[in-house]
C-alpha cells in the first residue's frame, strides 16, 4: 500500500489545542507552534477527532489506551478518536517512546489537552445558547442545554481553527467519573493485523522505489580498503554500489537483486579490533575501566558485615542479549535536493530525524520523518540504523530507497542489551534479619540512541566517522533495593566501554539488577531459614510492595516454608520447585511480583516453567486487557531470556546470526498458565507496564531452580547444559 499521511490529512479541519508542557523540554517549548493553539487534537467536519501524538505504537497497545484517555476527557465515542503518531511535521515532540513512559507521561499530556478542548467547546456552546457553561451537558460529542437545544462538536468547530491558548483551568475527570478509561476496549489496529491488511513499514511501497542492502564490516573498527565494483557489474537490476566513508551498500531495482548483489560484492576491509573471549566476560566486565559512584550509603556497612552472625557473598552475571524482532528492521527514505522524507518505525521520531539530518548533512528543518509501525522492538533494535542506511543510499542514488535488513543484519548488528556483573554481600543479625547489604554493579550505560548530538549512534553515522555517545541511563535501574536494611550501600561502576554495541533492551539494567537483588534476598532467606515471601515482607515498608507480594502468594496458593523443597523431590527424576521475585520498577514506577512453579529434569538439566502467577500494580488501570497482554508478554519474553538467551561472539563478531544460533522460547516450552492479579489504584497515577513484570522473572526462575534442586545458578541463561553441569 502507498501511504502518505499528508494526503490522508487533507480536509481534516481542525480545532487545534495546545498548552505548555514542562516535560517536553526546552527545545520543544521554544517551538512557536506549540506555544500557539496547535497540534494536539483536531475535530474534523464529520466529527472525527484526530490526536497528534508524539509517542508511537510498538505493539504494546498504547495507541488504543491513549485514545481511551482522550475519548474519556473529551466525551466522544471511543471510535471517533484517531491517533496520528510520531510524524515530525504534524505531532508534538513528546520524547521517544521508551521506558514505559507513554501512559505515564504522554497520558497526562493528552488527558489535559482533551480536557482543555472540551472546556473550550463548552464555552463556545454556552455563548451560542446564551447560558452558563456549567448548565450544559455533553455526551459523545453532543452538547445539550437545559432547554433541550443541542450542538455537536463538529457543528461548533469542524473545519475551523480556534486560536485559543490553553488556560490550564480545565480539570480532568476524577476516576469515579470514568466510563472509557478502565475498560478492556479491543485494540484498534489488531483486526488489520490478523487479516494481513496492516500497514507495517515492511508493507509500504513508493513509486520508483529501489531496494537497498548493506554490507557491514566483518570486525569492529575494520575500515574499507577496496570495493570491487566489478564483482557485481554483471548482475541484473542496474546494481549501484554506494560507498561513503566506511559505509558500503548496494541498490538494485528488485529486492532479490539487491540481496544477490550484497552477497556478491567483494569488499576488502582492514584488520579490526579483536573481541575478548566470551568465557572471560564476567572478569573482563569487572576489569573494564569504569567510573564509580555511591548511589546509597546508610549506616556502616563494613562494620555491620564484620559483626554479623552470618555473612554471605555472591556474584551474578547476565550476558549480552538481543531484542530479536521477528521482522528485521526496515525503512524507506527519499532524499532529494529539497530535503529528505524518512518512513521509519523508530521509537524516536524527532531525535532520529536530527541524527539523520547530520548523517545527510541536510538542515533538520528539511528532514521529515513519517513514523510507520514496524515489528515489535522491545527497545532500541535496528530500526534507526535501517533508517539511516536508507537515507544515505537514497541520497547517493537520487531515488527513494527501501532498506530491509536481512535476518543476519538484525541479529548481528542490532544494538545489544548490556552484559552486566553484580556482586552482593550481606549479613544477618542473630534474629535472622538482614543487618548489612552491600551491592555493586558493573554496567555500561544503556542509552545509545541516535540524536542530533549522537549521529554516530546509527551504524551509517558511525561508518562516516560521526560522533556517538552512550548515555549512562539504565545502568543503575533497580540497583537500589526496595527493602529497608539498617546498613546498606549500593555502588555503580559505570563502564567506559563495551564489548559489543549496546543500547536499550526492555528494562535496561533492571532485569539484571533485579536478578541479583532478588536472587540474593532469596539466598539470605535461605541462610535465615525463612520462607522467601515472609522474609521479603519482613524487610519492606512500602505498602504497595507488600500488597503485590501478598496478592501473588494468594494467587499462587503459596504455603510458607523455607527453600529448598528438599525431601519432596527425593528419588524423583524431575524436581519440582517454586520461585518468587519482586520489583518496584525503577524504584518509582509499577510494582510486580512473580511466583512460578517449575520442574527440573535432573538427567538433561532442562528447566520447564509450568505455572506463573503475577500480581501487578501500575496505578490507575487504563485498559485491563491491554495491560494483561503486556504482562504476559513481559513474562514469556523474559522466561526466554532467563532460560535460553546469550549473544555469542568469536574474536571478530557476533555469531548468533539466526534463530538456530540464538534460540528463543517456543510454544512447547511456554507455561501451561500465566495467572494475573491486577491491583487497580484509582488514586494513583497510571505508570507504564511495558517493563515492570519482566524484571523479576530471571530471579524467580533461579529461585525456583534452587527450591527444586538446592543448587543456586548465578549466571543467565539457565540452559539445560548449565543446569546439568551444576547438578553434577
Amino acid at each position, binding site marked *: *500500500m502507498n501511504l502518505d499521511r499528508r494526503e490522508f490529512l487533507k480536509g481534516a479541519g481542525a480545532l487545534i489545542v495546545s498548552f505548555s508542557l514542562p516535560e517536553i523540554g526546552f527545545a520543544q517549548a521554544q517551538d512557536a507552534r506549540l506555544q500557539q493553539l496547535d497540534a494536539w487534537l483536531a475535530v474534523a467536519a464529520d466529527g472525527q477527532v484526530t490526536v497528534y501524538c508524539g509517542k508511537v505504537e*510498538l*505493539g504494546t*497497545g498504547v495507541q488504543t489506551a491513549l485514545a481511551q484517555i482522550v475519548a474519556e476527557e473529551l466525551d466522544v465515542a471511543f471510535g471517533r478518536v484517531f491517533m496520528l503518531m510520531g510524524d515530525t511535521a504534524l505531532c508534538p515532540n513528546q520524547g521517544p517512546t521508551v521506558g514505559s513512559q507513554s501512559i505515564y507521561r504522554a497520558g497526562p499530556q493528552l488527558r489535559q489537552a482533551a480536557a482543555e478542548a472540551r472546556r473550550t467547546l463548552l464555552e463556545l456552546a454556552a455563548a451560542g445558547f446564551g447560558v452558563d457553561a456549567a448548565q450544559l451537558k455533553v455526551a459523545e460529542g453532543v452538547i445539550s442545554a437545559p432547554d433541550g437545544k443541542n450542538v455537536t462538536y463538529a457543528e461548533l468547530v469542524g473545519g475551523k481553527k480556534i486560536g485559543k491558548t490553553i488556560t490550564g483551568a480545565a480539570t480532568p475527570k476524577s476516576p469515579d467519573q470514568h466510563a472509557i478509561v478502565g475498560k478492556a476496549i*479491543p*485494540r484498534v*489496529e*489488531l*483486526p488489520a*493485523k*490478523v*487479516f*494481513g*491488511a*496492516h*500497514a*507495517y513499514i*515492511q*508493507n509500504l*511501497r513508493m513509486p520508483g522505489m529501489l531496494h537497498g542492502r548493506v554490507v557491514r564490516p566483518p570486525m569492529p573498527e575494520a575500515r574499507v580498503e577496496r570495493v570491487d565494483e566489478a564483482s557485481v557489474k554483471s548482475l*541484473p537490476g542496474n546494481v549501484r554500489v554506494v560507498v561513503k566513508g566506511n559505509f558500503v551498500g548496494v541498490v538494485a531495482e*528488485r*529486492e*532479490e537483486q539487491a540481496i544477490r548483489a550484497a552477497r556478491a560484492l567483494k569488499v576488502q576491509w582492514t584488520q579490526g579490533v579483536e573481541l575478548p573471549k566470551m568465557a572471560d566476560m564476567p572478569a573482563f566486565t569487572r576489569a573494564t575501566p569504569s567510573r564509580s559512584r555511591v548511589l546509597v550509603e546508610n549506616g556502616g556497612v563494613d562494620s555491620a558485615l564484620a559483626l554479623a552472625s552470618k555473612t554471605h557473598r555472591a556474584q551474578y552475571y547476565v550476558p549480552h542479549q538481543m*531484542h*530479536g*524482532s*521477528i*521482522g*528485521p528492521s526496515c525503512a524507506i527514505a527519499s532524499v532529494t535536493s529539497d530535503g529528505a522524507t524518512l518512513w521509519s518505525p523508530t521509537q524516536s521520531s524527532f531525535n532520529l530525524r536530527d541524527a539523520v539530518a547530520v548523517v545527510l548533512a541536510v538542515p533538520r528543518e528539511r528532514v521529515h520523518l513519517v513514523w510507520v*509501525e*514496524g*515489528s*515489535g522492538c*522491545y527497545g532500541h533494535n535496528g530500526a534507526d540504523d535501517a533508517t539511516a542506511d536508507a537515507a544515505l543510499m537514497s541520497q547517493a542514488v537520487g531515488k527513494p530507497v527501501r532498506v*530491509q535488513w*536481512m*535476518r543476519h543484519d538484525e541479529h548481528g548488528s542490532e544494538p545489544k542489551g548490556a552484559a552486566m556483573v553484580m556482586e552482593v554481600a550481606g549479613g544477618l543479625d542473630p534474629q535472622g534479619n538482614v543487618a548489612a547489604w552491600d551491592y555493586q554493579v558493573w554496567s555500561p550505560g544503556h542509552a545509545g540512541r541516535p540524536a542530533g548530538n549522537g549521529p554516530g549512534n546509527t551504524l551509517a553515522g558511525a561508518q562516516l566517522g560521526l560522533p556517538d555517545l552512550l548515555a549512562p541511563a539504565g545502568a543503575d535501574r533497580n540497583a537500589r533495593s526496595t527493602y529497608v536494611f539498617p546498613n546498606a550501600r549500593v555502588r555503580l561502576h559505570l563502564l567506559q566501554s563495551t564489548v559489543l554495541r549496546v543500547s536499550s533492551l526492555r528494562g535496561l539494567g533492571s532485569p539484571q539488577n533485579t536478578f541479583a537483588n532478588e536472587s540474593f534476598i532469596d539466598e539470605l532467606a535461605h541462610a535465615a531459614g525463612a520462607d522467601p515471601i515472609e522474609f521479603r515482607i519482613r524487610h519492606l515498608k512500602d505498602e504497595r510492595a507488600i500488597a503485590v507480594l501478598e496478592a501473588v502468594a494468594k494467587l499462587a496458593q503459596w504455603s510458607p516454608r523455607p527453600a529448598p523443597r528438599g525431601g519432596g523431590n527425593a528419588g524423583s527424576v524431575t524436581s519440582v520447585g517454586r520461585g518468587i521475585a519482586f520489583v518496584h520498577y525503577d524504584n518509582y514506577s509499577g510494582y510486580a511480583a512473580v511466583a512460578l512453579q517449575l520442574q527440573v529434569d535432573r538427567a538433561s538439566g532442562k528447566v520447564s516453567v509450568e505455572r506463573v502467577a503475577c500480581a501487578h500494580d501500575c496505578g490507575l488501570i487504563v485498559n485491563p*486487557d*491491554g495491560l494483561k*497482554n*503486556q504482562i*504476559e*508478554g*513481559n*513474562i*514469556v*519474553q523474559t522466561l*526466554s531470556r532467563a532460560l535460553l538467551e546469550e549473544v555469542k561472539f568469536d574474536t571478530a563478531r557476533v555469531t548468533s546470526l*539466526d*534463530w*538456530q544460533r540464538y534460540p*528463543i*522460547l*517456543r*510454544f*512447547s516450552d*511456554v*507455561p501451561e*498458565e500465566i495467572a494475573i492479579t491486577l491491583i487497580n489504584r484509582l488514586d494513583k497515577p497510571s505508570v507504564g507496564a511495558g517493563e515492570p513484570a519482566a524484571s523479576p522473572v530471571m530471579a524467580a526462575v533461579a529461585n525456583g531452580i534452587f527450591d527444586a534442586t538446592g543448587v543456586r545458578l548465578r549466571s543467565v541463561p539457565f540452559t539445560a547444559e548449565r543446569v546439568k553441569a551444576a547438578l553434577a
Partner: protein
Amino acid sequence: MTTITVNGKQHEVAAAPDTPLLYVLRNELELNGPKFGCGLAQCGACTVHIDGKPARSCSVPVSAVKGKVTTIEGLGTPEKPHPLQQAFVAEQAAQCGYCINGMIMTASAFLAQNPKPSEAQIRAALDGNLCRCGTHMRILRAVRRVAA
C-alpha cells in the same frame, strides 16, 4: 515466464525463476499478509498454504510452486473471516502482530487436518512459529477456541 495461482487468481510472474515465492507475493502481487522474518524457514512469518499445506514462502523458489497458493488475504476477509481470524480478534491475540500471519496460516492448515487436537498437538503444530512479543498464551487460547 512463471505462472502461479494465488488466492484463486492466475498471475504471470516477472521475477527470475529462483526468486523466493515470498518476494513475488509481496513485491509483484503486493500482498501484505506473508511477512519476511528470516529468509531461512526458521520463524514461520512468511507461511502460506500450497494446496492447503503450510509452506515457508521465503524458501520456496517461485518456479517450484506447482500447486494453488493461498495467503492470509485469501483465507478470510473482514466481511468473511476465517474462524481463526475471528478467534484471534476475540482473544486479542497479538502484540506487534508481525508473526500472526504465520500463526494463523499454520494453525488453519493444522486444524483442517486435525479439527479436535489435544493441547500437546496444538503446541507441537505451532512449535516452528516464533513469536517474540510473548503472545503465546493468547495465541494458544485463540487456536483452542476454534479447536473446541
